């Protein structure tokens, strides 16, 4: 009794057959489309490791039912930029070497990119607030802040 969901992922129209309309978007992206920028962290929208862009906004894909994103335009870390054509936030994270284990970094980059798209020249406090719901256990925060501030300068 599968249903078909159509959506756009990283610019490509996709048609997905799913058994359960409640299945979170995360599993469609990872297990059906083979993308793995985003990760399962908590399944509770508490940590941010699964973040993708939904029509340009940061979205926790671990709790968003696939049926609720029909027709949506989804961008993942893979679609944000590439080694050849990096997004300014990705370049800034490399320039600042802003990763330790890197498991949370998808969420940091996606959250920051969505925030910077709407907020030019933010203060560091604004960036801290924007990332307040993204968790990192390695303690990479000081580098992540530097990277986002660097990207903000680039993008303004």
């Amino acid at each position, binding site marked *: *009794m*599968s249903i078909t969901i159509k959506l756009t992922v990283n610019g490509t129209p996709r048609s997905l057959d799913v*058994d*359960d309309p409640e*299945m*979170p978007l995360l*599993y469609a992206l*990872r*297990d059906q489309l083979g*993308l*793995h*920028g*985003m*990760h*399962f*962290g*908590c*399944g*509770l929208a*508490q*940590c941010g*490791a699964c973040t993708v862009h939904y029509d340009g906004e940061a979205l926790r894909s671990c709790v968003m039912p696939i049926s609720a994103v029909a027709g949506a335009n989804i961008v*993942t*870390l*893979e679609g944000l*930029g*590439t*080694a050849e054509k*990096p997004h300014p936030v*990705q370049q800034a*994270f*490399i320039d600042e*070497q802003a*990763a*330790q*284990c*890197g*498991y*949370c*970094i*998808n969420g940091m*980059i996606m959250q920051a990119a969505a925030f910077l798209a709407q907020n030019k020249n933010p203060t560091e*406090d604004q*960036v*801290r*607030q924007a*990332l*307040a*719901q*993204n*968790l*990192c*256990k*390695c*303690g*990479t*925060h*000081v*580098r992540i*802040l530097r990277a986002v501030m660097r990207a903000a300068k680039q993008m303004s």
Partner: protein
Amino acid sequence: MLDAQLSRRAFLKTGGALVVTFTLAPRMGPAHGAAQPQKSVDPNEVASFLAIDDKGMVTLYSGKVELGTGAITALTQITAEELSVPFDRVTTVQGDTALTPNQGPTYASLSVQVGGVQIRRAAATARDTLLDLAARRLNVAKGDLAIRAGVVSAKTGGDGVSYAQLVGDRTLTVKANPSAPLKDPKDYTIVGTPVPRLDIPAKIFGTFSFVHDFKLPGMLHARMVHPAAVGAKLQSFSDAACRKIPGYVRAVRKGNFLAVVATNEWAAIRASTAISATWSAWAGLPDQARLFEYVRRSKAAKVEVIQSAGDTAAAMKGGGTILRATYDLAINTHGSIGPSCAVADFSDGRLTVWTPTQACHLLQPQLAVMLGMKPEQIRCIFVEGAGCYGRNGADDCSAEAALIAKELGRPVRLQWMREDEHGWDPKCPPTLLDFSARIDEQGRIAAWDSDLFLPEQPATRSGITLLACSLAGLPAMKFGDPIYNPQLGIPYILPNNRLTAHWLAETPFPPAWLRSPAAMQNTFAHESFLDEIAAVTRTDPFEIRIRHLTDRRGLELIERLRAFAKWEPRGSRARDSGALARGRGLSYVKYEAVRTYVGIVADVTVNRTTGKVKVDRMFVAHDCGQIINPDGLRNQIEGNVVQTVSRTLVEKLTFSRSAVTSLDWGSYPILTFPDVPEVAIDLIDRPNEVPWGAGEPTTSVVPSAIANAVFDATGARVRSVPFRPATVLAALAAAPRS
């Protein structure tokens, strides 16, 4: 000194029979499958750390693995430097029982200090051997040769010969020479430079493969159904509801071990919640509200004096003032952002496990005992997971995956859910410390006595038992891998000093190491207590430390930190009188009494009304000897600071009488961006000294620096970690009015 270091963990035998092998065989990467490549890994016979291929590309086979600390980049730098080849010519195969030598688990800040030194020795022997060959080939005296980018030529010029040409089509087997000449650090061009991390770009572009991303053809997905209580027995279960889920395959039950398997991940998750299981009642945990009474009452398996000078018992008697303080630290979970995950495949009587463990070579024999197999029938291949900071759920999850795979005879991927990781990873145990001192009439520390209450080491316990063994009732391998370095104590010279360890026979949860195990707890207490003595004797915190140190490097670090933090004695700074009180605190350690020196000055703001402590800034001075990668080192120090500020201010496991109740990030909060301090670092580089570890030492000084700053700000002593608002408000209420 090194002996004390080596005794900490069992696998650290260095030097001697290491064998460096050069081959022209194709490089062997981590093959996907159970086939065992024919490559020796036994460091006592034919262990091979290095291979050079016909293009001059070097492969490093490292038993130490990348846990997010930058270790592999640093080990690659060491290899390239010592071999005099460009950095980008070295690739690394890490953590594979079939391919890499057993260099011991990746823990205890030993990847560079021990693993790196082993690798450096192998590379130095290799270079020396290649120079011998080149001398013969070029008919030039060895001392007149130079190496540039893997090409040897006479210093005076002329044609050179490459490493690949020198090795030719032979396999050269060379015993590592412990006295093979090491490169002079003044000639270093790679070690000591901030080479960018090898793994970062792929992690930034989403092309990196964590173990969570690893797939095998025909792979099934599993989820665990862990017991409702720690010691609960599975009385019955029904998977009738699961059978309605498309993709559901079956349940796997062995005793109290229950898992569900499906063809896709979401179906496995649905099945794990749809399954109906009846567990026996169990309520064997202590009352959390009285945890430290429980710890104090716990029977000690052994009481051991682990540091002693003079006659402390006698010196406690006499005139002056007696000070006493008790410190405690809550239970912590490792809190990896990615829950543990492993892929296992059992076929043709062989088991292969792709695992994020710190210790492939330790997991292999554990799995063998659990499954009744021979170790050589099992291959453990490391694939990076989320940061673990110690023994998190990785090994337990890997063993559970192995058990399911053996049951199914098909490859299976098991990922823990958030509540599995928070609920079932082994824990950093609760720690209690009692301190007392006599200050004589001249204000000197006449006696210093301390007692540490910690679970006994697994070596004398039943070992760290894999969860799957406990649940399924399968045999567990005992291994004597200590949780703590018993090399605890204080870094100061005192005439009468004693540290007594009470190794407890019981503790609420299976204990395991979490970054800076026991050292963080012990350092928190002794650095807090020294600060209490400084306050009572009206001595500046820097001065009291200098007064009791003779160690030249320690004193230099202290002076560097004092200048770096622009420290001024308390007397010259007025205490804030409003709701917000600012203060500064100092803490210092010589890590585990034998290595890395670290000092921190913490700047904090305490809100007297709410009890909230905000760490504004941390000034860190750090001396780990020779620095391999200064940027990687800074990244580690920053991580140590921020992670431990989180443990100091926020983190605390909660539990009922039956089970862990802090099963998510709401109930086990960690530090978030708005509360992250600035971190300023002063690195002391000593290129001519041996490199020491940096993965843990900074952690050990964080809680006490904060506690001492809270006192400096308010006059209140916080002695119970974490310093949550209620704890701080109670301390403020108890503090004398100033």
